[in-house]
């Protein structure tokens, strides 16, 4: 098995184990480890999907996962907010995933609280059949926020963060399905951002979009890293090069190489990585 070296200088394990507030993005300074995966194995039933993953994902940077289909990059991403729990039989069979000092697979972890801090954007845009406004404030409403001013503020903040404010500030009450595909995906990002999570997971967010919409979302991702730790799964190596500081290459459930993006694409240390980024994979 190939060991994946942490890309940054030695990163200290965070000492605090306490849970954090919603305003958390400011809490972790840039470059410190946000997510730390330690020797993790993951199974779908009896089938092992991930083997001995070790990685340290720094905060407020964009980290990209690349690899051929079925290599487990989406599975790994989905481990970070435990959305994999929805699938019957899916479970972590060894190791830990530590986010801000707490192993999120501990028995006492409240998954709903976890998901409020680790937001997610899916491959296929999936707004709710509600108005644009209601989509954005959904996360706040389920948190029990009722005050109109607070909701309005969060809506404006999130839509601005997702670069959607100018396009739809005049039709917040319109149904979200009236938007274009790219707009809907940005709405989903706004929805995830509205609750101010620490981490934003993106599972191939541009695969259903046309090139222009893709460009817009990519710009947005680069923008978002000012405040959020972004982890993105992508099939598109150019996209990884454009948006990510760090890139992880995965193959058959293993993490082959994890390093700065320039290194992965310019000077890969592993033969498999080299083959893959040069397009010589069979």
């Amino acid at each position: 098995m190939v060991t994946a070296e942490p890309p940054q200088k030695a990163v200290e394990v965070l000492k605090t184990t306490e849970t954090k507030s919603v305003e958390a993005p400011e809490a972790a300074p840039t470059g410190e480890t946000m997510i730390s995966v330690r020797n993790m194995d993951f199974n779908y039933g009896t089938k092992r999907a991930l083997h001995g993953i070790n990685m340290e994902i720094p905060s407020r940077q964009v980290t990209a996962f690349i690899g051929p289909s079925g290599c487990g990059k989406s599975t790994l991403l989905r481990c970070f907010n435990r959305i994999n729990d929805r699938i019957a039989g899916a479970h972590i069979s060894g190791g830990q995933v530590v986010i801000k000092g707490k192993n999120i697979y501990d028995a006492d972890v409240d998954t709903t609280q976890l998901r409020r801090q680790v937001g997610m954007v899916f491959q296929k845009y999936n707004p709710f059949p509600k108005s644009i406004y209601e989509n954005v404030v959904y996360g706040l409403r389920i948190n029990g926020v009722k005050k109109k001013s607070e909701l309005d503020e969060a809506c404006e903040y999130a839509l601005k963060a997702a670069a959607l404010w100018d396009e739809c500030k005049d039709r917040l009450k319109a149904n979200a399905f009236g938007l274009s595909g790219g707009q809907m995906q940005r709405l989903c990002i706004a929805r995830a951002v509205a609750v101010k999570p620490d981490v934003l997971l993106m599972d191939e967010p541009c695969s259903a979009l046309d090139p222009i919409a893709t460009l817009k979302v990519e710009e947005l991702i680069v923008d978002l890293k000012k405040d959020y730790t972004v982890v993105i799964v992508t099939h598109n190596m150019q996209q990884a090069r454009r948006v990510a500081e760090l890139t992880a290459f995965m193959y058959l459930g293993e993490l082959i190489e994890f390093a700065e993006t320039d290194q992965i694409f310019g000077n890969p240390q592993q033969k498999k990585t080299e083959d893959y980024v040069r397009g010589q994979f069979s």
Partner: protein
Amino acid sequence: MNEDKPSPSSDFQGLIKPPSFFGLRVDRQSLIKHFFTGSAAVTILTLFLIMYSLLKEGTGFLPTYQFELKVYRQAGLEFCDFIQKPLTENTALLSKLNRAVNADTATLTQKAQARRDALFLAKGRIEEKTARLREAVTEALETAGTPPEKLAQARQALTEANATAVAEEAFPDVYNAEERRQIATDLTAMQPDAAEPPAILKTLSAEFTEQDRIAKEKYAGFLEAVEAFEEATEPIVELHDGIAELAKATKEAAVQQHMAEDAKAQLLAAAESAKTPEAKANFLKEAEATSLEAIDYKGKIEPIVAKLPEYEAMIPPYVAAIKAAMEKVPQKGDTKEATALINEVRKQLPKHLTHAEQSPALMKAWQWDKPIPLIQALTAFLFGGDWITNSSWQDFYGVVPLLTGSLLIAVIALVIALPLSVAAAIYTNQFATPREQELIKPFIEFIQAIPSVVLGFIGISVVGDLIKETSNIPWLQWIPGFPVQERLNMFNAGLLLALMAIPTMFSLAEDAIQNVPRAFSEASEALGATKLQTVFRVIFPASLSGVFAAMLLGLGRIVGETMVVLLVAGNRIAIPDFSDGIGTVFQPAHTLTGIIAQELGEVSKGSSHWQALFMVGILLFSISLFINFVSRKVVKRFQLPKI
């Protein structure tokens, strides 16, 4: 691609249609296609045939009913009904007063009556047990020359048997010890040839008579008032009966004439199509012989209308008499029942008196020759409040009582079934484990397998009693409509119909929830929503259109259901009395479906009644069509956009 180029001829071969199929000059594909087209066509054709036959039978109703209403007016029956209406009200009020009087007098006579009746029953039972020995004694008496010792022996045997039977009797606890002894002696001594009934029986009867007299005396004022109430109507009844007789005779004549007209038309038609000239001449002669004297409606109506001033003169004394009678009725009865009845009468009385006072004015405005347009036959059907058939006076086909019954039962069923089935669907789809799902779904769908007649049977034998018993529990009396009078009522029917609709609604609602894209729930959970929040904020709202369609299709099933309502709804043809509020649901009713099932088998084909039932069928059909139409619209309108 093949290596070497195929020759053009062989390539072309494959493109030619196979020449025949079973020797027919058609290819297999189009034959199968035509088979499917034919199947669809047959289905649609059948639907059209059903609609056609319904409409054909039903539309004939309007002219028929128009004619009947015309006769009703021209013969003066309508005129008589102006008088009949206050009379009917009077009868209803009177029956209430009578019940009130009985309830009051019963308090005094009840005990004596019970004592007397229990003894009578015991005597009957003992006589039955000793019947054979009694016969023996009678026979011995009748046969001349029976030795006295033999007679004495028979008497002795009878007395012994009497004693045993008396010992077996369990007398109710209404007699004191002295009376018990007396009873035992008297009953044991009973002989078939005794000239008088046992002495004790006579005593008890006398006691009852005395009590009855006392009661009558005590409530003399009340009784007198009731009597006065009854007598006040007598002159009016007399007058009404007199003119009703006349009107009815005219009506009969009109009906006869109508039938004769029909017969003549038939004869003429037969003459048209007759084969030989002789036959034709015969038919024509016969048609000629049919007398068609025009009925002199005007002449016949005059003596009826002439009674109007007489009737008008009767009204003020009547009103005065009723008012006087009501003054004698006590303010409140001595029993709860009587008080309730008296209060009811007092409440309804002003309305009744107004009706009576207004009737002459209505009759003055009435005209015997005012025409009845065809549309009035339709409105009388759709908005008429009476469904009266096989009446010796006049048949009315007003569908309102049936329609309200049907709709009310449907609403009750829906109110019960909707929350149950939707909640069950949400649970099964969202919360149940796969094992539970496997268990719940077949069980709920199994309900559909119960034949509706069996459900009706359960409604009569189990649910009816259950409702009645529950309604008598004292601490449940705050529920409107309790205690329930009728075992078979709309609530009972609604309950069973709900049960029948649940499988349909559950399955469709479950499908609707299942069809909500997984992406929605995933997105919601990724935002930190709990399962419940996801279900109620995202999944259920997204499935609403499907749930609504499920509700409407369930409603369609409920409205069209026949057997259960026929058996369980109580079949009282009357518009429910909505003054009971929610308690109205415990009244019996009849329904559109039930009336067809009940009456269609018994009416003669082609009669107005028959046609009216077809009209009811058309109405039902339209309701179902409307429900289906709306549900399709709703599903289309609120369909989730495809993403």
